């Protein structure tokens, strides 16, 4: 049986991981990620830090011309953890007869 990931299961962090996992190798800019998951600046920054500390997300800060840019991408460990958590959720559904 798969195991739950308490870090990922928080509602906004789950959406962040889903978005980054769907983006694959493409890093997502902070503003775009914020719009995709429906977060505020502070919220997103805080949860990204938590995920980065857990090793699930890589944060890259650079400049595009003179404009500072922050981008996030999922790490291989994060991808494995996210898929494992999804498997766990599906197993709960299957054992409840929810398919």
């Amino acid at each position, binding site marked *: 049986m798969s195991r739950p990931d308490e870090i990922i299961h928080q509602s906004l962090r789950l959406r962040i991981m889903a978005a980054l996992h769907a983006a694959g190798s493409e890093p997502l800019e902070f503003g775009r990620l914020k719009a995709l998951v429906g977060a505020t600046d502070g919220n997103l920054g805080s949860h990204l830090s938590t995920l980065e500390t857990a090793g699930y997300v890589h944060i890259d800060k650079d400049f595009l011309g003179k404009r500072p840019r922050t981008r996030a991408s999922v790490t291989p460990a994060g991808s494995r953890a996210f898929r494992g958590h999804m498997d766990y959720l599906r197993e709960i559904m299957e054992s*409840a007869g929810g398919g």
Partner: protein
Amino acid sequence: MAITSTEAAEALRDIAQTDRRTRVSGAYHVASPHLILWGLIWAAGYAGCGLTPPDQWGLVWLPLIVVGVLGAILLGRRAASSGGAGASGAAGFSIGRSLTLGLGISLFIGSVYFVFQPVSPLPYLVFPALITALVYVLLGGLLGLPRYVAIGAVMFLVTMIGFIYAKPFLPFWIAVAGGGGLVLGGLWMRKV
């Protein structure tokens, strides 16, 4: 931690929705600069048609199409090198597929002209715009990209309105409304 089946279902729905939004947004994001590029080319090409006699329209369009194709290849390579989804054109197709699609559409348009032999220059202006609108609607419908459907529908409407009500200055109408519409559509696609 204990997760109920209701919570699991809700979490999986959340994941699916976010996944879909991200993939659609990604396709739009990749397509955006291509629409802007081709919108500008359209505007220049149709404006050129308005300023030259019909027998010179080929000379107006040929260099613009070369610029458009080279521009599309460069945009695709830039997207790939910046860690993007790969060398993709509009609709997230690979550059190779996009160019093949464009070539196929051009051959189809040329064949229709050959078969129907239009005697007025107006079909030469309107038909490519209508075909392009159709392609956007079909791609949008088949790939689940509603903004493509909207852009195609607007292009179709604008072209027909111009054909019916703006014949004397149709090239300029299509340059502004069609080319401008593609540019605005490309800018719209940047928004999540």
